[in-house]
């Protein structure tokens, strides 16, 4: 079980259409769309977005690790999505978590992430 590492980026809540069209600054940015109006852009250092009321905040409140789907699935009482890319949210080992399933990983790994406040607990439960 690799350690859950802190994920740093930008958290943006904005009109869904504005988020769709947002331009992210930074290299190797991964945008996780938690909700139509809510995105966590891992690795992002800035964003251009057409919503004057958008909430844009630095985000360091999540931790995650790349794991095999089986390693995550055995601790979830719900099936991981079959399609990719996909973002799933639910309890993993009874801890609120999210699972990012990209379509560009050769090893098929998925990113398990949770609030940093839960990271130690989740890590100990998956060990």
């Amino acid at each position, binding site marked *: 079980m690799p350690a859950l590492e802190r994920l740093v980026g930008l958290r943006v809540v904005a009109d869904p259409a504005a988020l769709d069209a947002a331009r992210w600054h930074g290299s190797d940015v991964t945008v996780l769309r938690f909700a139509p109006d809510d995105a966590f852009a891992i690795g992002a250092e800035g964003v251009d977005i057409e919503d004057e009321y958008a909430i844009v905040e630095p985000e360091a409140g999540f931790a995650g690790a790349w794991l095999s789907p089986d390693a995550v699935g055995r601790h979830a009482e719900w099936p991981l999505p079959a399609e990719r890319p996909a973002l799933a949210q639910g309890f993993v*080992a009874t801890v609120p978590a999210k699972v990012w399933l990209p379509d560009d990983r050769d090893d098929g790994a998925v990113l398990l992430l949770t609030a940093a406040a839960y990271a130690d*607990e989740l890590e100990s439960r998956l060990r």
Partner: protein
Amino acid sequence: MTEGGRIVVDGAPVAFEAGDSVAVAILRAGEVPGHGGTLCLAGDCGNCLAEVDGTAYVRTCQTRAEPGLRVTRHPAPGDGMPPLPEVASVDLTSPPTGREIEVRHLDVEVAVIGGGASGRAAAADAERAGRSVVVLDAGAGDEVVAIYAGPLVVARTPAGMVLVHAHEIVAATGTAEVHPVCPGNRLAGLITARAAEALHAAGVDLGEAVAIGTPPAGVSATVLDGGLVRFEANDATGRVRAVVTADPTTGAETTTLADTVILGLGRAPRDLLARMAGTAPVAVVGAAAETQPLPPAPTEGLICGCMGTTVEDLGVAWDRGFTELELLKRASQACLGPCQGGACLPNVRAWIAARTGDVPEPFTARPASRQITLAEAGADGFVDAFRRTPLHDEHLALGARMDRFGGWWRPWHYGDAVAEYWAVREGVSIGDVSTLGKLVVSGPDVVALLERIYPCHVADIKPGRSRYALLLNERGHVMDDGMILRESETRFVLSFTSGGAANAEMWLRDWIEVWGLRVHVLDRTMSLAAINVTGPLARALLVRAGLADPPRFLGHVHADVAGVPCHVMRLSFTGEAAFELHHPVDQSVALWRQLMELGADLGIRPHGLQALFGLRLEKGHVIVGMDTELDTTPRRLGMDWAVRMEKPRFIGRGSLERTAKLPDHRRWLGFQMDGAAPAEGTPIWSDGDVVGNVTGSWTSPLLGKALMLGWLRRTPFPERVEIDGRVAAVAPTPFYDPEGHRARA
């Protein structure tokens, strides 16, 4: 294999032979493992259950006899339940480990339950197809107790629990034998044909045996003709003395003396596991998949030995309208015992079929199919997760005693709560308040939203200023409280209690949707940490940390403190000047250490919840959830000042307007008395009656007496009450600095 030896049954030694189960050993000794009833010795019924080595409800027929194993028979039916086991004292301040039972995960394509001929054939077929297979056979010690969606098969094994993650499940579980239902069927000496076969193989003397149905090969027994009518008792031994059968044509009864009655009354699918599978892909094969005829409908006698339900009981429940199997079992308790209908379900279905003409489908089964211990059930399972602030390890390093509060691990104290209290009152102290709920709301309709959400005014809060607010529901009851901090014309930060943030967020989102307002919401509770710097020297410390001009009371600014970007809020919960520093979680440790270092010569020390609760109690501040009840109104708290009824509308306004005209018999008040503070929750007495309870208590180091907050539920509210056997006086709050000079300093 054990070579034989002795087990201890109800305190007396009982010899066993190699290969004996506990039940067989007891039967070999001429005793019975339970309290009579037909024994199947196949794990299907509940008639051999006993306490084994301290664990109740163990199927002794499935438990191998080992030297020294201690067996205690359960109380006879009607004499109560087996006693609960002794539980060792548990340190509740430490997270439970739940690791006492080994748990192994197994990933296979096919899990076969049952190692009989059909199970082995299914496994062989799967293997030939190149699929990974595991066979779980109770006879080999792998006892499947549950099937869940997933699919997941849970098995109890001698080495612990095995969780099998399978793509497909094959249930090759065979059949169970039908138990007799007639008068006398609770007597000892009644066994099924399979049980007779097992006892014969073990060399157990059955005495004078008779058989209804075909006895197993090699078992010597007189085969009786005719239908079973009743069993008669040997009153001296409590065992069966005779069996009475009736000629199916003439009805003439025949009484046959017997020590043992072997019952071959038919079979029923052993399908309990398949019936709990739900949508999991389970294929039932072999005898378990075959349709079996139901037994004759019973007319008299005990139908459910586990729960003591008689055929007459079924009739009573039926006549009351419980005329479906699912309802009937609940009303009569038949099939609800330890064997979950393993013995009685075929008879209950037959009884219903005789009344309705339709055979009811078996009911859905629920895990676990066998009695398992709580440790087995909880193995590899988890309790609710409690969050840790980024300062968790700092607290531990400082010797904090951690406790769970509001869904978080929090420092209760650092070894000396009174010293922490004095640091706040006379010097400077820091506390970890990262757990507070923190929402950002932004949008063109944000003022309209907050004006409707909160009972206080919002529009007049200027950017850079803040206001305390209650959060009410439609009934005018207090849901939460916190601060409203305005950042710009269209953006606010809202704070909530540690345990209330998630509900508050949902509350806001729901109303935004209902009202169709344009407001964005972002929950920052777990993205921002917060440190409360409080005490008369707090301001001086922040100046040292680079905050040249700390905000005045109820002001807030964004500024660097010790090099860390902070949202600095000038508030007070402790009664002294206080600054909350909200900052990114990944910089919290650095900020904490800087503050501790910069404040060293000021006598800084951290404070935990115990001191914080005492400090707030002296100020009479409410803690929603701890002091409040589900129907607490601002009036009951004495907080009408937080509600502006001149506002045309806000959530709860209508209810407050109506209830304001009604008398109220509850008040949350302050109390004081000499001596040490009583425990929170202590009843409050008046004239011999309990008239309330204490919600917060603290022995004030400053005032030298016990201070309490609590409820009175009797009018007229008495001025003196009795708490913890002492006279206490109702006292105005705040107890400390009522004018608020120190908080605003």
